């Protein structure tokens, strides 16, 4: 390990030493580097291609090098490249990750160019806020996502479960138990496939019961998962997961991809993003035979008739301060977030970045439930250090301990609160 640390330090140093020379070289050659997350590669590769074509028509001869990153490690890579001065010209950041980079001066100020971005007057407010810091704009909204329950119609029918959206969490649990009774003999069957570390779904239970992750009191952050409301939500989560799920309590939503487990036909329901539905049917990795046998509904609240708040996930596009091609980077973002490309992104199962397009999906049976789910949403605390809580796996660790029964709700939330309070208040 010592070798590894030393090697990492050496890596940073060498990169730093190279800055001056490579900086001069890259200002001449006409190419820009774009870091996008793998979601675009899986879900809407045609949009990336169309944006590159449009960009190259405007700037003939300029190459676009799109590199796909995974969520687990893209920030570590970004930090190393920022230190080395060879950071990409455009980078996609999750809407929970932007604050840390804006606050530390890593992103270029785009305020003066804001008006020139497509639909900037009608940007989705929640998403646009994640790109603003101290009144300035540092990131452009890309797309948002809401999760809904995606289910296998055939299995529901065979188990005698109504395929209409359940009215309450209690009804959802009862339906799931019927499914388990019918198919539970197969040890790999889950009525609800819910990996323990899927904190986007797990924390939705907390917000449904009126709890929250943390709050600010007199300028100091405080973890609030020990509060009775939060504990009630987590207790309910444990009940649901233990009764309906045989997913790995220490696994997460991406190892393996939930949609692909669902595609195998041994899962009644999973809570996923809109793009995961078509992904499950993808002939290359999923199961096209399921087409027409899949439905979706917003996760029901424990309060009958209401919808459980969903995590408002999303992504922004930003330009690191190290870029030598700021204007080219801005032009590429404009091409990528144009009305026609955002329409395609919406049709791929996402919430587009502008309110002027939100209605596209409302009437569609495949996308409507996700739009409806987004009506009630929750978001992480707006703290400068929030990304560090995610990186430290605080919530994931707490959830897998609760769901596996390795720790009580009370002790797991206490430990998590202590960590959250410490990380959020670190200078």
């Amino acid at each position, binding site marked *: 390990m010592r070798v590894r640390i*030393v090697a990492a330090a050496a890596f940073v140093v060498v990169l730093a030493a190279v800055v001056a020379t490579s900086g001069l070289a890259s200002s001449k050659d006409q190419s820009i580097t774009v870091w996008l997350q793998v979601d675009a590669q899986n879900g809407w590769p045609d949009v990336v291609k169309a944006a590159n074509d449009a960009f190259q028509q405007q700037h003939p001869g300029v190459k676009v090098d799109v590199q796909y990153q995974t969520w687990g490690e893209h920030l570590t890579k970004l930090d190393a490249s920022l230190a080395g001065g060879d950071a990409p010209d455009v980078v996609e950041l999750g809407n929970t990750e932007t604050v840390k980079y804006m606050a530390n001066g890593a992103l270029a100020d785009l305020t003066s160019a804001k008006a020139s971005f497509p639909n900037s007057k009608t940007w989705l407010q929640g998403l646009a806020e994640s790109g603003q810091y101290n009144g300035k704009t540092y990131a452009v909204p890309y797309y948002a996502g809401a999760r809904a329950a995606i289910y296998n119609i055939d299995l529901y029918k065979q188990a005698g479960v109504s395929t209409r959206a359940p009215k309450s969490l209690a009804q959802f649990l009862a339906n799931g138990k019927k499914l388990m009774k019918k198919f539970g003999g197969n040890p790999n069957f889950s009525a609800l496939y819910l990996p323990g570390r899927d904190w986007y779904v797990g924390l939705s239970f907390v917000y449904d019961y009126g709890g929250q992750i943390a709050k600010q009191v007199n300028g100091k952050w405080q973890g609030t998962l020990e509060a009775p409301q939060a504990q009630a939500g987590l207790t309910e989560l444990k009940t649901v997961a233990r009764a309906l799920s045989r997913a790995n309590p220490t696994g997460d939503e991406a190892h393996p991809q939930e949609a692909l487990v669902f595609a195998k036909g041994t899962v009644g329901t999973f809570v996923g993003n809109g793009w995961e539905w078509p992904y499950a049917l993808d002939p290359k990795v999923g199961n096209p035979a399921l087409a027409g046998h899949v439905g979706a509904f917003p996760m029901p609240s424990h309060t009958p008739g209401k919808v459980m708040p969903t995590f408002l996930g999303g992504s922004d596009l930003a330009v690191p301060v190290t870029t030598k091609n700021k204007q080219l980077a801005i032009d590429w973002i404009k091409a990528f977030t144009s009305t026609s490309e955002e329409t395609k992104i919406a049709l791929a199962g996402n919430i587009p970045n502008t309110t002027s397009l939100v209605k596209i999906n409302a009437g569609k049976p495949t996308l409507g439930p996700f739009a409806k789910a987004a009506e009630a949403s929750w978001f992480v605390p707006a703290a400068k250090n929030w990304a560090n809580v995610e990186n430290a796996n605080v919530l994931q660790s707490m959830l897998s301990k609760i769901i596996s029964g390795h720790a009580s709700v009370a002790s797991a939330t206490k430990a998590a609160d202590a960590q959250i309070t410490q990380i959020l208040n670190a200078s």
Partner: protein
Amino acid sequence: MADLGAVTVEPAATPAPRLRRARLGRALAPYGLLLPAAAVIGGVLGYPLYLMVKLSFERYGLFQLIQHKGQWIGLGNYRQLVHDHEFWTVLLRTLLFTGVTVGLTMALGTLIALLMTRVSAAMRLLLTLALVLAWAMPVPVAANIWYWMVDYEFGVANWLLTTLHVGNYQHHDWFVNPWQGWGVITTLIVWGAIPFVAITLYAGLSQVPQELLQAAAIDGARPWRVFKDITLPILKPIFVILTSLSIIWDFQVFTQVWLLRDERPTSDYFLTGIYAFEQTFSQSEYGYGSAVAISMVLILLGVTFFYIRQMIRIGEV
């Protein structure tokens, strides 16, 4: 004669400077030969180490990273380290883990080495082959094989334990309970470390004089007594070297835990090395992470001291 005279006279005429130059040259030559190696080590190890020491005295977060300029805070990071409850937990866990893995490696390695002296040549060849294959397996490959063996859904371990009616291990998650998880990791580390110990000790055992062992046997000494009073004292230097090397290796375990835990270990699975990496790259606390790493280096220097002292003693014999 003139020639001869010249030859005999010349050294007498300028004896001192020439001889001194030759002696000086001879004395400097080894250092000259060492220079390239020293320069490489200084460049790839010394300089980064110097930078890491410097970082550990600085406040160096994401902001400083982008500015390429740290802020000197003296012993601030180390003061924080002393009061960091998690650091002490992790350090204690690392020491415990090192103790268990080194103990198991040495005990099992010795037993296998002793076994190798008893079995037939063909069996010995087979055993050596198996050991070398395990030794030659790259760590990431080994970790991935273990990963699949203890997989939640498809793992052969769960299948085997269920089939053998040890219990219902279907969908058993080996990493929910950290003790079990560390059990899996310990097996992987010990499995990977045994070959070197066993082969080295076997080589050592073959150097123990047979007459001594036979004499002891004739005197009626039992095998344990023979091992304790004859083999062990003779092989002590090898044991000391192997133990200190094992401590150095096991103390800095990183890759195996990292891969087995999906590259996102939770705090139950932190060792000192992983903690340093997490502080540095996940929390963007480059200065503090360096302080953690430096503390590791200092602890390992202590172990290295024993190792080098033993090496020098062997050299003297």
